[in-house]
């Protein structure tokens, strides 16, 4: 089981802030493919991967990163703090 969090327009497009799923995805890219295949709203949200960032257990990471041992994955657009 893995927690998936969505922020900003990713959250709005997918329509929920977080969910817990059961997945065998080996990498973030695999997880994105799995979710995108599931429903249109995921496919739309993940369409342009260059416009997205991912954090694994609250650390910025890469889409190629493995998911072994990861408990929380967050997807969001580039940050606009400050």
């Amino acid at each position, binding site marked *: 089981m893995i927690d998936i969090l969505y*922020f*900003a327009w990713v959250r709005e497009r997918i329509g929920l802030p977080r969910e817990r799923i059961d997945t065998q995805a080996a990498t973030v890219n695999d997880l994105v493919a799995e979710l995108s295949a599931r429903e249109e709203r995921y496919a739309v949200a993940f369409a342009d991967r260059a416009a997205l960032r991912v*954090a694994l257990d*609250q*650390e910025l990471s890469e889409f190629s990163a493995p998911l072994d041992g990861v408990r929380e994955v967050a997807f969001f657009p*580039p*940050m*606009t*703090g*400050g």
Partner: protein
Amino acid sequence: MSVRIQAEPFDLGAEANAFAAAQAGAGAIVTFTGLVRDIAGGLQAMEIEHYPGMTQKAISAMVDQAVLRWHLTGVLVIHRHGRLAMSEPIMMVATAASHRAEAFAAAEFLMDYLKSRAPFWKKEITATSSGWVASKDTDEQALSRW
């Protein structure tokens, strides 16, 4: 070294004075304050979303980096989230050092990292619409100087 993530407004002047009073021995204090500013279309409010579990951790890591790179006697970061009205302060950074160049460099470093590496997202709300603020290439490029 203090990092505060809060929904409540803060008073720039009170924070600056409290920070300065705590800096025994520092000759130089730099503050940066970001305010909600108007946009074409007439801003009504700004909504700031953040990633609670990650925010404090990410900003504290930036502050640790700054403390390693420059001789600082103090660092303060305050960043708000939630709904903000026009002209309200969004966030502030304060740095204190013996020498002005270090205080300036650390404040700019922290601002550059806060802009692009702290998990905040701004939404601008006008009378008729709302939209997420787009990240700027120049903000990403600014990181390369550090």
